[in-house]
Each structure stands twice: as structure tokens, then as C-alpha cells.
């Protein structure tokens, strides 16, 4: 219907004029405002491409830098020490306790949180003061990679993100292909020495072990971070013991020596007691792929891994 | 109508056994009555009954000719005051504050004491010789001093009837006498009526107008000290051989406990 033909319908004329005006004034807002759905199904509305980002967890900091958006980061949490530049950024607390006041003073237009670690109260508080919070919740290696792509999209660099992440996906595929051919050794991943603690299937660590061609000794324990007795370990007889430690050197040597008392354990007998940098497997960020590669190297040393990092 | 308190055929039990049976008693105005009897005979219970703190199952208690059950607790407190055997103040109050607490039954809705209340407290302390203890903490006092303060508190209640539950049990001989002296003179000067429960039989006999010997929950005998306190009554009720003679000074009964060694080691009770 041509606009001129509408003259004979007075009410419609009003509607059309009204809509035109509304459209005119809301155009600037509508054109940039986008609603994203985060991993918890929450609607996060961003009025423009985020330029002042707060990372509420170290893994998120790594993702932002990975996407080349480090200069947009205006605040990080305490243990965001990788990459080195991140240490110079203002601190907003620890990821388990965010100082909302500090966040406000940094005037962000987006905060990114993780469901595994950040307190729900902190997220709610930030929302109440009007700061959009995007919550990620990756539960497997693939989901981590998807998350990195999604964050890239939100931050306005979807193509770059896609490119970077497919390189990562390639590396993952290579490892999985090679490692899962050669049988599955039983692996015990020790995340805490005293008390002895491991991880069950509800963790990314489990996914890493699996993808690296191993079998998680504590996979079907009911508790996410179960405490183990030495008896249990002796009974289950793992082939590989990997200690995830946040400190290097001395502590590991001591821990390793402790294990060598129990020579009935196959892992101990064969000398398969190793250390892995916990950052590589604890942080749900781009370095998880290195963690996977490292894990595969420890579980399947027989495979000639070349340094295609 | 010069009986302050009348008990008629009173029965009381805590559960299914009678603790007190068939008690008949009258407290006359201006009288000091000594209540004696062995442990477990029901003395403390009887005091509580008289104060209206426990409900009797049978019989009647008349306070100023009205049944005690018809009074509200606050009204009773304005007529009857109790001085306990011992009082533990969990937190430090000054002596003056403790004595002033006796005004509780008289303070209405307004929670602060007026000039009159303060004056009454002062007076009570003067009468009991505790005025110079006023600022001291109740915790610092000796046994005798504390008892006098508690008596002062009872006086502050402006009650006409004062019940004392073994006020001298923890006191040395000097202070025992002091307390009895005090009670005696107060009864005279303030027109009080007093019941004292005591194990100090001979001492009580010197100060009481009449005595009541309680045995297994019922009145064994009641009357003047010389009637009530005899070798026969005491040794029967207390189940312990005694010798009863006359105090040469006061001419009141004096009880001497006979030791099992047969010789009669003189022990004044």
C-alpha cells in the first residue's frame, strides 16, 4: 500500500506517523544494542561494543589477552598474572570475593564472570549497580573453545576469534587422534597433596585426561573433589600419577619422594610420577590446549610428540 | 484479726507423695516464729507455700483474711518478703542497687525510682546498719554483710511479713547473733511478723516468741520454745540423742548434742 493511499484511513495514518517518529528517535540505540544470552541463559544487553572490560577470573583474563583485546581490560582479579602485562592492571579483588566498589570506580561497560568460582552474590550486586555481567560456564575443552569464540563475538572481533580458535581446535584434534589410539592407562590426577584429593567426571580435568588418552581413576566418585586414602590408590593401582602443583621444584620433589614408598603401585614402579603446571589444567582458557598436550605427553610418552606448539 | 497469715489444714505434694500434710498454723502480728526440723522435713517448701509461690492441693491459706490465691503476685510481694539462704548475683550490682530492687513490687509502669523509693531504701539500710556499704559491690561482701543487705532489701519491700530461710546457716557465731538481734529489733520497731527457718535451735529459742517443729511434712509440735524444745521432741524428730537444759542467762531451752561416744561432747546447737 502506498503511503498516499493511507489518507483515507485516518487511524492508520496516526499509527504510521507515530511509528516513524519512534523509529527515528530509537534508531541510534537499536542499531548498537544487542542482547546476548550467556551460558546461564541470562540476557545481557550491551549498548555498544565493550571497550572497558573487567575480568572476574584469571582464566577470563587469559582469554581476553588471547583475543588481542588486552588494552580493553580495565580491571582483573588478584591471580591474573598471565600474561605478564596483566599484572599491571588494577585489581578488583579475588575471584571468590569481588570488591564491587572498586569495579564501579573503574567504570566498565562489561564484566565477565565464571559460574565456576565467582559468587552469585557478586554478580547480582554488579547487576544492581547497572554493570552488565556476562557469565561463562565451560565444562569441557570444547566448551572452553566455544566460549572463547563467543567472547570474541561479544567484544566485536568475531572473525579474529574464529581464526584463533580453529587453530586451537586443530591442535586438540591432533592430540586426541594420536593419543586415543594406544590404549588407556589408568591415571590419578592429584590436585592436593595433604589431604590427598583428586577429581571426578564433573570437571574439565576429567575431560583433559580422557582426551589425552587416559582413564581417570576417580572418575565415578560421587564428590567432585574427593578425598582419597592411600589404600584406595594402592587398590586401584594407577599407571600414571600426575601431581598438579602451583609451586614448582622443592615441593614436588618432596611429594614425589613420598610416593616412592608405595612401590606396589604400577605408576611408582615404572617411575611414572610427574608434575604438571596447574595453571595449564585449572584455567578454562586458551592454555588448556597446552595442558592437554602436556597431559598427553605424560600419559603416552611412547608417542613421538614433536614440538608443534 | 491480728493474724497476718493463717494456714488451715494445708496439704501439698510435688508429684504423688504428700510433702506437707495437715498443716495448721497462724502467724500473729508482731511475732517471731522459729521453724525447725530435720533436713527434708519440708521447711523450705512450707515457706514457699506461705509466700504463695507454690499452689496447694488441699486446705486454705489466708493472707490478711483473704485467700492467698486471690492475690496477684505483685500484691503478695507487697505483703510478704522472703530472705533466701543465699543469693548469687551473677553480675556485679552495688549494695544500694540491690536494696533498691526491693521497690520492684511498688513501681508501676514507669520504670524509674522516685525520691520516695530512694528514701525508703536509705532507711532500710540505716536500720540494718548497711549504709556505709552502699557503694560496695555485692560480690565483695562477707556472708554476714550480705545477709544484712538482703534483709534491707526485704524491708524495702515494705512487707509486713518477712520469711527467712536459714539466714544464719553460713555465718559465724558473731554474725549469727547479729542477724537474730537485727530481726528481733526490727520486728519490734517496724511491727513486722517474721518466720525464721533455722538449724540453730538454741539461738532461735532465745529470740522467737513461738516455734514450730516440723517432722516429715507435718507439724510435730507448735508452741512456746520451752514447750517445743525438749529432749524428747528433738531426739525423736531429729533421730539423734540430745540433752536439753536451760540457758542460764536467757532462761530459754539449750540443746546439747550427745556424741556417739556416749560421753556427751558438749556441742551447742
Amino acid at each position, binding site marked *: 500500500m502506498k503511503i498516499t493511499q493511507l489518507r483515507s484511513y485516518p487511524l492508520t495514518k496516526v499509527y504510521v506517523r507515530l511509528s516513524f517518529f519512534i523509529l527515528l528517535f530509537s534508531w541510534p540505540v537499536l542499531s548498537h544494542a544487542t542482547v546476548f544470552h550467556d551460558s546461564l541463559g541470562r540476557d545481557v544487553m550491551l549498548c555498544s561494543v565493550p571497550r572497558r572490560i573487567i575480568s572476574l577470573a584469571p582464566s577470563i583474563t587469559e582469554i581476553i589477552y588471547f583475543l588481542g583485546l588486552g588494552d580493553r581490560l580495565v580491571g582483573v582479579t*588478584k591471580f591474573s598474572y598471565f600474561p605478564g602485562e596483566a599484572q599491571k592492571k588494577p585489581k578488583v*579483588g*579475588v575471584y*571468590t*570475593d569481588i*570488591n564491587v*566498589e*572498586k569495579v*564501579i*570506580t573503574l567504570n566498565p561497560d562489561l564484566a565477565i564472570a*565464571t559460574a*565456576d*568460582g*565467582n*559468587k*552469585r*552474590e557478586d554478580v*547480582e*550486586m554488579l547487576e*544492581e*549497580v*547497572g554493570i552488565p555481567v556476562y557469565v561463562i560456564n565451560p565444562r569441557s575443552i570444547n566448551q572452553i573453545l566455544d566460549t572463547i569464540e563467543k567472547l570474541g563475538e561479544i567484544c566485536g572481533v568475531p572473525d579474529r576469534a574464529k581464526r584463533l580458535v580453529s587453530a586451537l581446535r586443530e591442535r586438540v584434534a591432533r592430540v586426541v587422534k594420536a593419543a586415543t589410539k594406544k590404549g588407556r592407562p589408568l591415571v590419578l590426577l592429584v590436585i592436593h597433596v595433604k589431604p590427598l584429593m583428586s577429581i571426578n567426571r564433573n570437571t574439565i580435568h576429567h575431560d583433559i585426561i580422557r582426551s589425552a588418552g587416559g582413564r581417570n581413576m576417580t572418575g565415578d566418585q560421587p*564428590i*567432585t*573433589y574427593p*578425598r582419597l586414602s592411600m589404600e584406595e590408590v594402592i587398590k586401584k593401582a594407577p599407571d600414571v600419577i600426575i601431581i598438579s602443583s602451583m609451586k614448582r621444584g622443592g615441593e614436588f620433589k618432596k611429594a614425589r619422594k613420598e610416593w616412592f614408598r608405595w612401590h606396589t603401585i604400577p605408576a611408582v614402579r615404572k617411575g611414572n610420577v610427574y608434575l604438571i603446571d596447574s595453571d595449564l589444567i585449572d584455567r578454562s582458557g586458551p592454555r588448556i590446549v597446552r595442558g592437554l598436550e602436556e597431559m598427553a605427553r605424560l600419559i603416552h610418552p611412547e608417542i613421538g610428540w614433536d614440538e608443534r606448539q | 484479726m491480728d493474724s497476718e497469715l493463717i494456714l488451715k489444714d494445708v496439704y501439698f505434694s510435688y508429684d504423688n507423695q504428700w510433702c506437707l500434710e495437715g498443716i495448721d498454723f497462724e502467724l500473729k502480728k508482731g511475732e517471731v516464729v522459729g521453724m525447725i526440723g530435720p533436713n527434708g522435713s519440708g521447711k523450705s517448701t512450707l515457706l514457699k507455700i506461705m*509466700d504463695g*509461690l507454690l499452689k496447694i492441693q488441699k486446705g486454705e491459706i489466708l493472707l490478711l483474711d483473704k485467700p492467698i490465691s486471690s492475690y496477684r*503476685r*505483685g500484691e503478695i*510481694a507487697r505483703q510478704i*518478703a*522472703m530472705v533466701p539462704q543465699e*543469693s*548469687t*548475683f*551473677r*553480675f*556485679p*550490682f*552495688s549494695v*544500694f*542497687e540491690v536494696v*533498691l*530492687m*526491693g521497690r*520492684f*513490687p511498688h*513501681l508501676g509502669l514507669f*520504670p*524509674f*525510682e522516685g525520691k520516695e523509693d530512694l528514701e525508703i531504701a*536509705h532507711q532500710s*539500710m540505716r536500720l540494718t546498719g548497711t*549504709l556505709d556499704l*552502699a*557503694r560496695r*559491690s555485692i*560480690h565483695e561482701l562477707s556472708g554476714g554483710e550480705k545477709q544484712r543487705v538482703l534483709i534491707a532489701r526485704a524491708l524495702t*519491700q515494705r512487707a509486713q511479713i518477712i520469711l527467712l530461710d536459714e539466714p544464719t546457716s553460713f555465718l559465724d557465731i558473731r554474725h549469727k547473733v547479729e542477724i537474730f538481734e537485727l530481726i528481733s529489733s526490727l520486728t519490734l520497731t517496724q511491727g513486722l511478723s517474721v518466720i525464721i527457718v533455722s538449724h540453730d535451735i538454741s539461738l532461735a529459742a532465745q529470740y522467737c516468741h513461738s516455734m514450730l517443729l516440723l517432722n516429715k511434712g507435718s507439724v510435730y509440735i507448735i508452741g512456746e520454745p520451752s514447750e517445743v524444745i525438749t529432749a524428747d521432741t528433738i531426739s525423736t524428730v531429729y533421730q539423734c540423742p540430745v540433752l536439753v537444759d536451760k540457758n542460764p542467762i536467757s532462761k530459754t531451752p539449750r540443746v546439747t548434742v550427745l556424741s556417739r561416744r556416749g560421753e556427751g561432747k558438749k556441742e551447742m546447737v
Partner: protein
Amino acid sequence: MRGSEDQEITPLKVIYTGFILSGILIIISLISLSLGPAKISLKDVLTWVTGYKSVDQTAWMILFKIRLPRILLAGLVGFTLSIGGVVFQALLRNPLAEPFILGVSSGAAIGAIIGIVFGLGFNLGVPLLSFMGALFTILLVMGISSRHGGLESSTLLLTGVIVNAFFTAVIMFFIATTSGSRLHSMLFWLYGDLSQSRYVQLSLSLPIVLIVSGILYAFSRHLNLIVGGEESALQMGVEVELLKWISFLGISLITGMVTSFSGIIGFVGLIVPHIMRMFLGSDHRLLIPASALGGAVFLISADTLARIILSPSELPVGVITAFLGAPFFIYLLKQRGSQWTQS
């Protein structure tokens, strides 16, 4: 008439003391408003509070949405716990009593933890469940301890201790089997966390706290008497059992309520009454308002320190109350000897 002058408590004394403590309260609050990671000067705070000039958006946001509700909650919690401590110490005739002693703390904790496990929000869900937990526990404890309609102090205390111990074990079970952000939420709640203050919560609880406190204050003289012995008090006309029921329920109600917002903050209810008693005497007509206001001042100060000492990290406020409270209290105890128990 010498020797006992100005010993009695007059309305004037109470008002005077209340005035001074309220003044201190206001000053501490204003100072606290100006402290934090965001730099807001005391002058700005004053201009904002008096409405003299408006402050910029960020400052307003921080003052009104973050700091002020927190300070108000700290004041309210300190007020409530201290009044609970005073009344419990008198009624139970026990210097070690404090409002959590009858199981309110672990009951509230269990409720909160269940709320957290089920993923409820911190605006309504968790506080509501926490409050229900507190209420359930206090009714349980009182139910177990009541004999012939009366509440015996020692039975109450013992039952409270046992219920606390049992629930604490349940709490430890939850902690051992939870992970991730839920675990952190639980731990923070258990340590005491005043940062989740909302105006809705405050406006709901403030009137109730004031009403219950008012009722308890009306019983000040009765409490004085009970300190000297339940029997003596009874004799003089205090309805001891009724008072116990009303007080235990009332205090547990308001304690449960504020605890459901703030988590468990220990020490305040125990030591503030003692400190006030040392300086102002044991008469509850003065002690109750003094403890309430003193408790507010104390907790606001402690929370402010907790906020700024390791900024931008925060210490749990319970750490500060214990760190401040314990040595000071021991010092006072040594100075004044054991006036609190009689052999």
C-alpha cells in the same frame, strides 16, 4: 543520705548516655562512609548526606548502593546481637551467654546453606531459608527443654550446645561435598558477610528489631531482679517463665533475622555487653540501650576495618571482631578480676 548519691539510674542518665553513644554512632558512620577503595572525602560524604550539593554519579552509586546499606546493616546487626547478649546473659545468669547459644547460629547456617545449594538468590531466597532454619532450631531447642511449661536455664544451654554441635557437623558435610562458586558462597556466609545488604531487608527488619528491643527494654527491672536469682525474682513478682519465653523467642526471632542477612558474626553479642557493664554497671535500664548502641558502633568499626585493611581484598568481619575483641577483653578481665562468678 551520704554514700549512695548518684547511684540510681534516672531517665536523665539513660537519655544522656543514649545521646553520647548515638553521637559516636553517627560520627563513626560518616567516617566509614568516606573509607573504601574509591576515594570519597569526608567533605563529600557530608554534602551528600545533608543534601547540600549533589555528588557525581559514581560517588552516589558507591555511597548509596554499596557503603550506606552495608553500614546500616552492620549497625543493625551489632545492635541486635548486643541486645541479645545482654538479655541472654541476664536470663540465663551466665556470663558466657550470647544470642547464638541456643542454636540460632547453626540453624540459620543450615537454612542458608540449603538455600545456596538449591541456587536461590541472595535477595530473598537465602535469607528466607536461613530465617526459617533459625526459627525451626529455636523452637526445637525450646521444645526439648520445656518441662511443665517452664524453661530451665541449664537444660536450655545444654540443648543449645548439642544442637549447635550436631548442625555444625551437618554444615561440615555440606562443605566437604560442595565445590565451585557454591562452596565459596557458603564459606563467605559462614564467616559473616555484610556486603549483601539491601534496603528491602533493612526496611523489613529494622522496625521489628526496634519493636522487640522496646519490649525487652520494658523488662529491664525484671532482668535486674533475675540476675539475683530466679526464685528471688519470682518472689518479688517477676513472671520469670513468661519473661523467658517472650525473651528467648523475641531475641531468637531478631537474631535469626539479621543473621540470615549477614551470616554468623561471633563475639559481638558476648563482649559488648561485658564491656558496657564494666563501665556503666549492671542495671539493665542503662545497660540495654548502651549495649545496643555500643554494639552498633563496634560492628560498624570492625566492618570498616575489615573492608579497608587489605583493600581491595576484604577480611571476614568475624576475624576483626575476634582480633579486636579478644585481647581487649582479656585485658579488661585481668584488670578487674573475676567479678563475674561467685564461689
